[in-house]
């Protein structure tokens, strides 16, 4: 007797289009490709003198951030504004939870203000699923990061970065280096890479930063950076949080850099044209040395640009799928 799993179907409407964007899990290769294609079109919009299209004119996007993140919130805000939506930013970490209002009530209130879309970041894994399933299923919910679980726009902006620089995923070797255990970016990247046909995904970290059951992602685990970097096409470095030095996961930033920090010398083990990526903000001298972060192979700043296009794409697609679903529901009532 098992629960009916709704997590995978929750984000698609009856026609298989995106209506919420919660996780890479359960999305087909075709759908991920559609997101990348749509983002390509939005990238072109970003290069015009008027960087704005009227697609979401008159609609309201609420950025509801229960965890502080200026960067992610800003790129979502920019994406929504370039789609001509009205944007409201709510930094809940400093407002209503201190008054004891629950997540449930906070979002119900926003829904009553006729918000069309929620962009949610929350410290609890599954928070975006919870909102999409139980709080406001008729509002398109975009996951901007939930606990350790998922950061699907970061995942897809990483894919857009790789596709624009490398073309296809099938022959690529991609290494993800650092704190896999706590990283929602790593989880989203592993799922997206696999779905898009990448067959050589490597994760590189000490055992204390690798989750139990990592094999399910179809990745190879390396504990030695040099071995893991050998001939890879893409290196994705993860941010190391300072608090990891507490709970005995690592002795020090210094020792981590000595063993797993990306230096010019180590990068030379990868293919000569290997890309260096990082979700930011970077800790110079902890996971990556400045010469690499600012070097010719680094596409870290391109990722930021692509991130806006990816966010425009999923905002537009989810809004579209949600509208279609509402239409379908209305038609079936008649």
């Amino acid at each position, binding site marked *: 007797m098992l629960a009916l799993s709704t997590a995978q179907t929750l984000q698609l409407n009856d026609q298989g289009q995106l209506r919420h964007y919660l996780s890479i899990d359960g999305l087909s290769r075709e759908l991920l490709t559609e997101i990348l294609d749509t983002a390509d079109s*939005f990238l072109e919009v970003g290069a*015009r003198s008027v960087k704005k299209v009227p697609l979401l004119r008159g609609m309201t996007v609420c950025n509801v951030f229960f965890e502080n993140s200026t960067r992610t919130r800003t790129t979502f805000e920019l994406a929504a504004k370039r789609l001509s939506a009205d944007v409201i930013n709510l930094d809940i970490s400093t407002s209503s939870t201190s008054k004891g209002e629950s997540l449930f009530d906070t979002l119900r209130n926003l829904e009553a203000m006729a918000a069309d879309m929620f962009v949610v970041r929350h410290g609890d894994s599954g928070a975006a699923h919870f909102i999409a399933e139980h709080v406001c299923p008729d509002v398109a919910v975009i996951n901007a990061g939930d606990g350790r679980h998922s950061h699907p726009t970061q995942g897809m902006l990483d894919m857009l970065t790789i596709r624009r620089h490398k073309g296809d995923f099938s022959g690529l070797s991609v290494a993800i280096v650092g704190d896999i255990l706590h990283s929602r970016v790593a989880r989203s990247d592993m799922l997206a890479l696999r779905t898009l046909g990448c067959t050589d995904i490597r994760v590189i970290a000490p055992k204390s930063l690798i989750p139990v059951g990592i094999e399910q992602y179809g990745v190879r685990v390396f504990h030695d950076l040099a071995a893991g970097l050998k001939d890879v096409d893409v290196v994705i470095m993860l941010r190391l949080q300072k608090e990891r030095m507490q709970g005995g996961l690592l002795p020090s930033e210094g020792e981590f850099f000595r063993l797993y920090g990306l230096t010019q010398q180590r990068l030379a083990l990868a293919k000569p044209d290997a890309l260096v990526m990082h979700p930011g903000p970077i800790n110079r001298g902890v996971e990556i040395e400045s010469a690499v972060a600012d070097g010719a192979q680094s596409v870290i700043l391109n990722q930021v640009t692509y991130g806006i296009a990816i966010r425009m794409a999923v905002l537009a697609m989810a809004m579209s799928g949600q509208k279609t679903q509402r239409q379908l529901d209305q038609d079936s009532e008649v």
Partner: protein
Amino acid sequence: MSQTLPTPAELIPALAAELTAHLATRGVTQPKFVGIRTGGVWVAQALLTEMGHDVATLGTLDVSFYRDDFTQNGLHPQVQPSALPFDIEGQHLVLIDDVLMSGRTIRAALNELFDYGRPASVTLVTLIELDARELPIRADVTALRLSLPADQRVKLRGPQPLSLELRQLGAVTD
């Protein structure tokens, strides 16, 4: 289908001739050509070839982000980037589409064009103009004016070869 339509191959030379005459009348010497994806681009390519212009100079527009039916129909799943290989500021543009019906696509295309800059003029060319306008937009140059029953549509198929077909509304489309 009672009505048989001419082939685009039969219509293009006349369209080219009329456009050349039109541009001459207006004193436009260095026009920039822009096709609206997908059918408009095919017509534009045929037209440029007929007129002896380099097809590579053609700009393409995908108006998906500018459509006014997003709330009804959602986003087109195969949206592609628009690509204008020239600066449109102060230029005389020739905007090309396959079929002018309601005028809504042209409205969206004009809005999109103006987000690239301020052209000196825009001339609208369509292969076919239907008597079904919903907006005050007319083609400057067209090869064929048609009047269809409310439940019929005309569709351009392509790219090689181009052909026109009549469709009954409600019939299965692809």
